[in-house]
Each structure stands twice: as structure tokens, then as C-alpha cells.
């Protein structure tokens, strides 16, 4: 298929996307991403992502399903190979400051029937501070207990994790992140499918982390409360649509660009790349 097969028409917008505005950042940005592209089996899922975020900020990452939000987090942490680009943590290439990074994966990413207790999961947040094969010590246990307590889960420390409700499981994951004592947190949908009490607890945690000078990047699906929850917003749909303070970039125009269908040309090039890869393989 050629690009001409499609009804053409749609004017300008296609490649006339306005250049990203830069917002000034004081101090060393906790996270910088330069020209990052990611591909799954040669199929690009993120194109030329480039941004930097300021310290002590809560940042919501929004975009439609398949926009590459989780992929962005994973790419930043080195869980996926980069097709191109670079990630800097606190001004240096990623691995140098790995221990200053905390991660909350999607709750469904693990099997909650695993034979372990809530406290054990939180203790895993301390593993990064210990050498390979070294056991966590009494201080680590104390930190893990306090993290559970902070999330209102002290009474469930010894509970097997499958006996916890969805919201409680999410709090266990957040407690594990707290136990990491990180300065930059990446959270993948911590508000997804939780009860009202947990939602409130998560929100309070985010705000407390911020007042302690930490930066939290949160993949978020509920557009309605973005302005209440976050300082900055990162709007993503395969490419970076906008990033900046919520009151300046969370606009109807940006939302339309983010959710109003993929850029036609970009999608087609992606599809073509994928098809050619398959043909090569056949």
C-alpha cells in the first residue's frame, strides 16, 4: 500500500505540529530524556521523545491506550532496549543513580497468589540497598514496617498477599516504593481500580513525597482530576504532544492532539515498517 491510497485532505496539522515549548528548570533535572525512540520488534512505539522535568514535581503522564505510557516508563528504567536516544538521571547517564529511582509497576503485572506476605514484598524495596545474596537487616525491616504503617497497612504485615483487596495490594506496592527511599519515582497507574480510601491515601503520599523534594512521574488514566492531582502533565501519543505546567499545557488543543486519533502519516509509516519486517521474515 502507498500513502496515496488513503483519503488525503487533512491539511497542515499532519506535520505542522507546533514545536514543544520549553519551560525553564532550576537545578539538576531528576530526569532528562533526549531523542528517545523505542521499537517492539522493529515496530516503533515511541518517537523522538525529548523532555526534562524539574525537581519536587508531581507529573501526570496521560494519553490514549497504546500511546506508549508504560513503555516510556520502562524505557526510562532500561527495561526495554532503546532504538535511539539517551536517559539521564540527576544529570548523569542512567545507571549511575539507579538507587535514587523507585518504581511502582502496574498491580496486575505480578501474580498476587505468590506465597509471600505483605511485609516481605515491602522488604523487596530494600534489596537494592543490599549486595547480591545479602539478606536485609533489622534496619531494613524497621524501614519496611514503617512504610507499611505509612500506607495504613501495619495490621496486614503478615497477611498473605492474595488475601488483600485490590486497594490494599496497591498500597503494598506503594509501601515497597517508599521503602526504596528514592528521590525520583515512576508509578504505573497507581490509581487504577482502587477504592476511594486508597485513592486518597495515594494522593496524600504523592503530596508528601513532593513536599520532601521528590519527583513523581505517574501514568494516569483519569483526565478529570489531572489538574487537581498534578503540577505538570506529559501528554503522549507515540510522540510527545506537550509537557509543562498543567495550567499552561493541559489545553483543549493539546488534548485533541493527544486523543484525536493518531497522526495519520506516523501511524502509516509505523505500519509499513512492521509489515516490511514481517515480509523479510516470511
Amino acid at each position, binding site marked *: 500500500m502507498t500513502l496515496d491510497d488513503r483519503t488525503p485532505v487533512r491539511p497542515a496539522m499532519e506535520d505542522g505540529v507546533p514545536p514543544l515549548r520549553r519551560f525553564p528548570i532550576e537545578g539538576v533535572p531528576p530526569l532528562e530524556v533526549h531523542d528517545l525512540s523505542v521499537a517492539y520488534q522493529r515496530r516503533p512505539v515511541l518517537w523522538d521523545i525529548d523532555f526534562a522535568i524539574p525537581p519536587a514535581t508531581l507529573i501526570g503522564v496521560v494519553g490514549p491506550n497504546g500511546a506508549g505510557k508504560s513503555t516510556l516508563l520502562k524505557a526510562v528504567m532500561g527495561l526495554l532496549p532503546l532504538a535511539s536516544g539517551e536517559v539521564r538521571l540527576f544529570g548523569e547517564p542512567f545507571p549511575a543513580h539507579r538507587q535514587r529511582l523507585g518504581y511502582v509497576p502496574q498491580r496486575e503485572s505480578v501474580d498476587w497468589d*505468590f506465597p509471600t*506476605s505483605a511485609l516481605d514484598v515491602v522488604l523487596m524495596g530494600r534489596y537494592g540497598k543490599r549486595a547480591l*545474596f545479602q539478606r536485609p537487616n533489622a534496619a531494613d525491616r524497621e524501614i519496611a514496617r514503617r512504610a507499611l504503617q505509612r500506607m495504613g497497612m501495619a495490621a496486614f504485615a503478615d497477611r498473605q498477599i492474595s488475601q488483600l483487596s485490590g486497594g490494599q495490594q496497591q498500597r503494598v506496592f506503594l509501601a515497597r516504593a517508599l521503602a526504596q527511599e528514592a528521590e525520583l519515582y515512576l508509578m504505573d497507574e497507581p490509581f487504577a481500580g482502587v477504592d476511594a480510601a486508597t485513592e486518597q491515601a495515594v494522593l496524600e503520599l504523592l503530596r508528601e513525597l513532593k513536599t520532601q523534594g521528590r519527583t513523581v512521574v505517574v501514568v494516569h488514566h483519569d483526565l478529570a482530576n489531572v489538574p487537581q492531582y498534578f503540577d505538570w502533565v506529559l501528554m503522549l501519543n507515540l510522540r510527545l504532544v506537550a509537557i509543562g505546567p498543567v495550567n499552561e499545557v493541559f489545553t483543549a488543543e493539546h488534548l485533541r492532539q493527544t486523543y484525536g486519533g493518531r497522526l495519520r502519516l506516523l501511524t502509516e509509516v509505523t505500519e509499513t515498517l512492521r509489515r516490511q519486517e514481517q515480509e523479510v*521474515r516470511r
Partner: protein
Amino acid sequence: MNASFDWGALLGDANVRSVLLGSMLLGAGAGVLGCFTFLRKRALLGDALAHATLPGVCLAFLVTGSKHPFVLLVGATITGWLGVAAVNVITKRSRIKDDAALALTLSVFFGFGIVLLTRIQKTGAAAQAGLDKFLFGQAASLVPADVLLLGGVTVVLLACVVLAFKEFKLLAFDPQFAATIGRPVGALDFLLNTLTVLSVTVGLQAVGVVLMAAMLVTPAAAARYWTDRLPVMLVLAGTIGALAGAIGAVVSMTAPRMPTGPWTVVAATALFAVSLVAAPRRGVVARTLRRWRTRRRVAEENVLKTLYHLGESDGVWDAPRKASDVSGRRRAKTAGVASVLPRLANAGWVERTGEAWRLTRAGLDRARRVVRLHRLWEVYLTERLHLAADHVHDDAEEIEHILTPELEAQLEAALARPRFDPHRQQIPYDAPVPASAAEPTVVP
């Protein structure tokens, strides 16, 4: 066993001891490593790798001409590992999904192994080499030198698991998180796979390639029923594996021509069946018992509730009622109600007066709570979920039995202690409702 079977003399025999010990060690090793295979949902990978060891055994023999267990073990380990690698490469590099990759690997490697085995047999060497016992296992063929080697490998395996326990646990539970904190996930995965391959190769001689995968998975699956703690699960799975190994060995010795593998696996499966049925909390018996108790309690609460309803209609709370009064009101079977009432009397909820029964003080309180929960839930459904008043009764019939006191308190607070349910019936509280409380909100 009959008396002519002399266990004492048998256990005194060094060969017998080594057969028994060897079988137990291999069962323990496979049981422990199998926990990780099981928890990582890679049971089929274990099957593919077990089958993939057969060409290794044959090739090792063909190349060296020796049937020394160490030589065969090295061969088995190499092709077993190649099998695992093949599955990984196929799933990563092609569009073939993992189930097909496993099936392909298993059959190709095993088929190749059978071809080699047939070739060796044609030359007439198989019988001397005893390679065919690797198909279904022959524990009785273990000699003390074998046990020394297999036991040594098993001890190393278990030591590695103890040493790397925390890393393996994290790898099995949340490998992505492990990667983000800088754990060498690839290397740990390699180590765990290698240990698993070794635990399989150690068991080949006694259990055989065809059934060895069952020794990885069955003890782990059985152990999971008994505990929610990973360390306990490892110990239990090791014990169950050892026990199954011992049973297989005994059968192999008492009937020397019998292949051991099937017997060992049957023993492991029997232990699994026992766990499935008898384990506390997760077992079938415990679950059935729990369900039965709940049903019993629901029946009791329904009778108490009906006694309350009868009191509500005529205003006499402690009037004696016949079983037929209750069953008539609930449209239930009189016999069923009649069987519940004596139980309620024993527990002190009702008193018997002749042919009739009346609520005690405690019984009235309990009945009132059930009615209260029922009506509160009806209010909740109509107010918060906007269901029609005539659609909420059946749901409330269930919920009234399962709400905890905490949920009850939350429900009361959320609805601001309403006085009436959607059918304009009064909601009975233990403490009187202040006069200012809400009037009914939904008109029937």
C-alpha cells in the same frame, strides 16, 4: 508387606541404602527447584528440558563409549540446556508463541534422542550400556558411586538455592522490579535455569526423561496447598519429593524389573491428591466444610429473622411460634425449619415451650441485626445505585448474612441511620434513632 520381607536386613545392605538415599536426594532436589519452576509458571519448560536431556545421554555414550554417570550427566546437562535456550530463542526471535515453541523443542529433542537410542540398540550395546533405563528410570541400578555423585550435585543445588534465596524469590515474584533495582536478571535467570537442568539430570537415572518433569511440578503443587510462605513451601516440596523418591525406590527394589519413574510419579501424585483434599484452608475438605458452615448459619439466621418478622406483624416479640408458622411465612419446608430450631435452642437463641419456640433476649438481638442489615442494604441499593425498590430484596437476602460489623458501621454512617427501608418498613437499631433522623427517601 508380609513378615518374610526383612526390612532390617534390607536397610543393612549398602546397595539398598544407596538406592534409597539416591532416590530421596533426587526427589528433594527436583522438589525444591521445582517450586521456582512452578511459581514462574514454567512447568512445561521443565517438561521440554527433561525430554531434551535424552539426546545428551546418548551422544555422551556414543562419543566416549563410557556409561560413567558423570559422563552421561554432562551430556544430559548440555542438551537439556540447549533445549531451554531453544525455547527462549524461538519465543524471542520468531512469531511462534511459547506453547508451540515448547512443543517443538520437546518433540524434536526427544525424537532425536530416540533415534540415537535406537541406533545404539541396533549395535547391541544398549543392553550393556543400560541406556534404555533412562527412558523410564531404574532406581535399583543406582550404585554407591552414583549416589555419591548425584548426592554431591544435589547438595550443591540446595546450597545455591539457600544462598540465592532472596534473589530467586524476587526474580520469581517481580522480575521487572528486580531489573529496575539493578539486579542482573539475565544472569540470575541463567543460574536458576542451570540449577533446574541439573536437578533434572540428577534424577534421570532413577525417574527417566519421560516423567522427570512431574518431579519438578507435582511436589511444588502439593506443597503450595499447605503453606503461604515460600521457605516453608521449599522445605515441604523437598520433603514430598524425597518421600516420593523413597517410595519409588522401594517398589523398584521389591520388583526389580519394574521401571521406577512411573511409581515415583504415582507416589508424588498420591501425595498431591492428599494435599488437594486434606490441606487446611486451601484443601477441598476445608473449603467444603467452610461452605457447609456458612449454609448452616444462613439457615439459622433466616429462621431467627422470620421469628422477628412474625413479632413485627403482631407486636408480640416473645410469643411462642410453631415451626409451621415460620415455614408458612418464609414459604420454606416445615421439616427444614423444624431441624434448625433445636440447634438454635441449644445455642440459646430460642427457647422451647411445648411444641412452640420463642426468641430469647440474645436471639432477638441477633434477629434484629439481620433485619437491620437487610433493610440498610436495600436503602443503600436504592439511594446509591438507584435501583428500583422492588429489585433490591433478593440481593439483600444474601448480603444480610455476610456484612461484617465494620461494614455495618460504615453503611450506617454513609446513609446517616435512615429510619425506614424502601418498603417503608422500620429499620431496627439497638439504640433508639433520634427523632430528627431522616424520613423515608423512596416511596414504594
